[in-house]
């Protein structure tokens, strides 16, 4: 099935994720974080934060409700069984702390075919309640043998 380049630019409805203290701790433990800013509320407050701080890569958690539906979009038509994650880029703004609601909007930035493989690049833009962009993500997925 050829890559549907007509879907380039398709933008999905924003999704909001409420960042919880225990979710940050669960994520931090899973990836082996030991920095008390992620685990200890008192340590985070002593450094001037309202609550525990999300590790930068926690972006994957608050982006997921927005990025996931895009990956499964029928018009884009990714064959999930043959998809591999080829590359990932994140650019971060202000840190995210527990208690914030982060709203992410995802769009299909590029779709192309090279050497029989499909390349799909999604862009996610995540903003905090103050309107700051806390993270911009570029998600490159490769579908083998399109």
């Amino acid at each position, binding site marked *: 099935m050829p890559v549907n380049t007509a879907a380039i630019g398709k933008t999905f409805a924003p999704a909001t994720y409420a960042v919880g203290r225990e979710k940050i701790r669960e994520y931090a433990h*899973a990836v082996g974080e030991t920095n008390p800013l992620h685990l200890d509320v008192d340590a985070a407050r002593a450094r001037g934060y309202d609550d525990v701080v999300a*590790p*930068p*890569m926690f972006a994957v*958690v608050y982006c997921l409700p927005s990025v996931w539906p895009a990956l499964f979009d029928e018009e884009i038509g990714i064959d999930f069984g043959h998809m591999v*994650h080829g590359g990932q880029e*994140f650019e971060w703004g202000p*840190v995210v702390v527990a208690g914030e609601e982060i709203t992410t909007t995802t769009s299909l930035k590029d779709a192309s075919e090279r050497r029989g493989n499909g390349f799909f690049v999604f862009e996610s833009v995540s903003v905090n309640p103050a309107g700051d962009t806390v993270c911009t993500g570029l998600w490159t997925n490769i579908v083998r043998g399109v």
Partner: protein
Amino acid sequence: MQPGDELEPLRITPDKYLTVRYAGASGDFNPIHIDEEFAHEVGLPGRILHGLYTMAQVARAQTDSGGGPASLKRLSVQFRGMGVPEVELTVTGTVTEVRDDGTVVTESSCEQDRKRIIRNAEAELRLER
């Protein structure tokens, strides 16, 4: 930090059930990461690590050297090959550039069993005191 300086190497061995905990923590329950039988059915040697877990180790190597979570401003990686549980991961990195505005640029990779599963990871750091 000056060009040529090396980041403190980061070593971690994901245990047998790590992929299950990471799936729960991240929300990515793709069965290739958590179901041994399914992984074999689709031609993998067994359950594989989430690429974004491995990227998180590259990120930790940056924030450990940069002084904390606010120091990491950008990270870009290419996934090559597959990581597996129960084998040590090693992240190494080198400072390649220090810009006039103080931004420190590093290049890192993540190896497992002498294979680079993440290579050419480029990061931008703003050092925290």
